[in-house]
């Protein structure tokens, strides 16, 4: 029997010890009318060789196209050591470290992770991670409502330059508790938050503003100005950041005069494979004064009975297993394994390596934007500085162009027609350090050919 070790003798002797004639007897408290006879939709068992063949066929079917896609999930080189260690059974098959004495490995990794992510974001304290970037934004909004001492409005400003999916997750998650998200428009020329829209909110009772840097378009916002404006109005600032970019960009803890108050983001770029969307992890950091409003697991360093340093889950009085209905969140886990991968990744890259990843990704995107601009009818949509993504305007709708490119094995970008129809035909394109000059030439050639072909078809 797959994964069940019992022999017939075991079963006989175990039943005798129980005093039951058969395994079926052990289910005698379940009403007979409820018992099922069979499962039709589940096929017969496959052994490991057979499932291996099936999965390999399915994987081959998906192939490995050359992808220039970003929008919150980024292809980066992952050192071999990262997953070789992360998938060790001692990390992979352990549970939440409730028994601290038997979980010092996991606990210390979390402590090291908290230290790294706090420093990377320029904040004082971090939690042990959340589900993903989208859910982290939702949790940050809920936390802002708890942490803000005066505002009772539960109104949160969310610019449309924040990832559309993050905005949807926040609304679906926090809307049930009465939070209201109000959109701020962006400037059409620069792709940045339209600061001319801000004065309309002066004197209003608002809880927080969400600022994404780089924003969804890859464009850099004027974070100092926005942070100072928000603080002058009494708002908390929720920063949504790309962790790779923070090797070279100003950390949210230093935005404006006082710095951001809550920082969240998608941790996937730090050693986590794209994997069709997950598992990823969300990170969250904040000021020391808000630590008790923070959701999720937190690890602290302390000492044992002999005075020896050790690590343990702490501030658990915030959590559901203690507070039940009054907890800061219903969250029960973190994304432990992904956070472990990120900690190993950051240890291998270090401050210099991570800055190289950020700078190289930036440089590749600049090269890509320059080659795109040479194509007839293609233009760069926004004029401000960017990190490693660029919005391109196309002379005709992107759907057919992208399909044409995909047929040739190149995923050319993300169509913005659905979320930003006002831009006209537009693509969000990303190049990271994994793309060579030859890859970028191939992309430009594929785009050029697809445009020519779709022009003829039109």
């Amino acid at each position: 029997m797959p994964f069940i070790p019992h022999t017939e003798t075991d079963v006989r002797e175990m039943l005798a010890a129980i005093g039951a004639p058969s395994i079926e007897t052990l289910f005698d408290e379940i009403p007979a009318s409820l018992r099922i006879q069979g499962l039709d939709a589940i096929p017969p068992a496959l052994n490991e060789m057979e499932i291996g063949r099936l999965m390999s066929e399915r994987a081959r079917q998906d192939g490995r196209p050359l992808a220039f896609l970003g929008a919150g999930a980024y292809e980066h080189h992952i050192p071999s050591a990262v997953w070789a260690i992360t998938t060790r059974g001692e990390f992979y098959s352990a549970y939440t470290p409730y028994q601290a004495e038997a979980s010092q490995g996991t606990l210390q990794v979390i402590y090291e992770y908290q230290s790294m992510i706090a420093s990377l974001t320029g904040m004082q304290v971090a939690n042990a991670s959340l589900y993903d970037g989208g859910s982290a934004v939702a949790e940050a909004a809920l936390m802002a409502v708890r942490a803000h001492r005066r505002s009772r409005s539960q109104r949160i400003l969310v610019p449309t330059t924040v990832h559309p999916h993050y905005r949807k997750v926040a609304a679906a998650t926090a809307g049930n508790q009465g939070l209201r998200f109000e959109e701020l428009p962006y400037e059409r020329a620069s792709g940045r938050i339209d600061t001319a829209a801000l004065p309309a909110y002066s004197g209003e009772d608002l809880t927080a503003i969400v600022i994404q840097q780089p924003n969804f378009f890859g464009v850099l916002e004027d974070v100092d100005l926005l942070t100072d404006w928000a603080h002058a109005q009494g708002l908390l600032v929720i920063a949504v950041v790309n962790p790779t970019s923070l090797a070279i960009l100003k950390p949210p803890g230093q935005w404006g005069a006082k710095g951001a108050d809550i920082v969240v983001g998608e941790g996937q770029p730090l050693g986590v494979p794209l994997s069709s969307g997950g598992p990823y992890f969300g990170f969250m950091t904040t000021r020391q004064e808000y630590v008790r409003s923070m959701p999720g697991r937190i690890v602290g360093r302390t000492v044992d009975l002999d005075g020896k340093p050790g690590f343990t889950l702490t501030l658990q009085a915030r959590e559901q297993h203690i507070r039940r209905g009054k907890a800061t969140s219903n969250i029960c886990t973190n994304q432990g394994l992904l956070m472990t991968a990120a900690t190993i990744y950051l240890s291998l890259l270090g401050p210099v390596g991570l800055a190289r990843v950020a700078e190289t990704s930036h440089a590749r995107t600049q090269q890509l934007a320059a080659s795109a601009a040479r194509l007839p009818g293609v233009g760069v949509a926004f004029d401000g500085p960017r990190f490693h993504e660029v919005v391109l305007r196309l002379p005709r709708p992107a759907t057919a162009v992208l399909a044409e490119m995909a047929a040739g094995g190149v995923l050319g970008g993300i169509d913005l027609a659905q979320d930003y129809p006002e831009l006209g035909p537009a693509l969000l394109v990303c190049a990271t350090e994994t793309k060579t000059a030859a890859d970028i030439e191939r992309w430009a050639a594929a785009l050029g050919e697809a445009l020519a072909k779709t022009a003829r078809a039109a």
Partner: protein
Amino acid sequence: MPHRSEQVVFEFSRPGRGATAQWPVAPEQPAADLPASLRRSEPPLLPEISELEAVRHFTRLSQLNFSIDTQFYPLGSCTMKYNPKACNQYAMLPEFLGRHPLAPESSGQGVLACLYELQEMLKDVTGMRGVSLTPMAGAHGEFAGVAMIRAYHRARGDLARNEIIVPDAAHGTNPATATMCGCIVREIPVGADGDVDVEALRAVVGPKTAGIMLTNPSTLGVFERRILEVAKIVHDAGGLLYYDGANLNAILGKVRPGDMGFDVIHMNLHKTFSTPHGGGGPGAGAVGVSERLLPFLPIPVVGRDDDRYRWLAEADLPQSIGRLSAFMGNTGVLLRAYVYMRMLGREGMSRVGEYATLNANYVLARLRQAGFDAAYPERRASHEFIVTLKRQARELNVTAMDFAKRLLDYGFHAPTTYFPLLVPECLLIEPTETESRETLDGFIAAMAAILVEAETDAARLKAAPYTMPVRRLDDVRAAKQLDLAWKPAATAVGGTA
């Protein structure tokens, strides 16, 4: 288990050292276009260490953990069963790992086929009409479930229904979830036999009842025998039934929540379907629904048109409670569950419930012979059961925590302690079906030996464990003198919050 500690990674760091083989070549052009006002001035605190130092450090840290791969882990309500290696290997094929979440469906037919078939298998095994795989953990699935219940009532214009009924034995996530969904929690007691107090339920249901959240078998390790009556009472009052799938392993292939009358269920794929717990995640909390909740499923869901698979989103499910993850939940975890279910197959499903139940009842019978008290001695154990040390606490002054800590010295992970809260000095023990009789006998012998120690040398238990990398930790100090991030020695501050 190594009886040693490991330096914090930053303490190995030396300026100028690094795993340079992992770094990209520096770009020819510096990023001159990034204005100084937006640039970082001080590098972040990240270690500068060689690749070998990193490999050794994290490998040594891993060795300070208990895990399923190294120890019996009878953590009640957590289903710590073996995670087959094939599930990891085939979910981590390069094409699956490299696929971007926004890549077109045309380059994802393989992964979408797996997810679609997983939805179908989960529907069958739970007796539900529709499944969404997007929630990323059990608590996330709970949130989706209660949000769907709310959306259902709201869509009918039944706006007063904002009360969620929860038995007092429930997981803490149940009331926390109800609160997150803007509901009011109404707790009802559990009777002396372990079943929900049906009269108390009758007294509390009414026009404000949105629904009830139940685990069955319950967190007390017994099957709720009057479940059909409970379902009728709640449905007659206009409420819906939520099934917390934490204990699904107990009944897999034997009974289905849909047949019991549940309208919505979350499944912990990291429990029942054997995906790894990863030191606290990632999990996956797929949700299943009955006919009337189908329109409200969280998006995206995988649909099939003839032979093509595609994502169903807002346009297909306009009444959906919405998007709960940035992309598509924990896809890699879902692939692991898919491989597991295919390897067990149709006949393997019911074996899970059968052998999990056999193992639990065996350990319970043997522990009772050894002098331990069952919390519900008149009841069958499900896949787990509760031992109460109330008598030992009174007579010998030892606690469930002392037993738990001492078990670590015997090489066994502790069972769940102090949950459910209503049973004093409890150990919630879940062996799972993947453990051999010899392992179970070893655990039983250790429990018996500890009981003898409790009777002869209680002080020895009070100070356990002795063989772990650390002894009992000062949790009060951890919470009072917060040290949540490493700082270089020169600037280290304790910081009292």
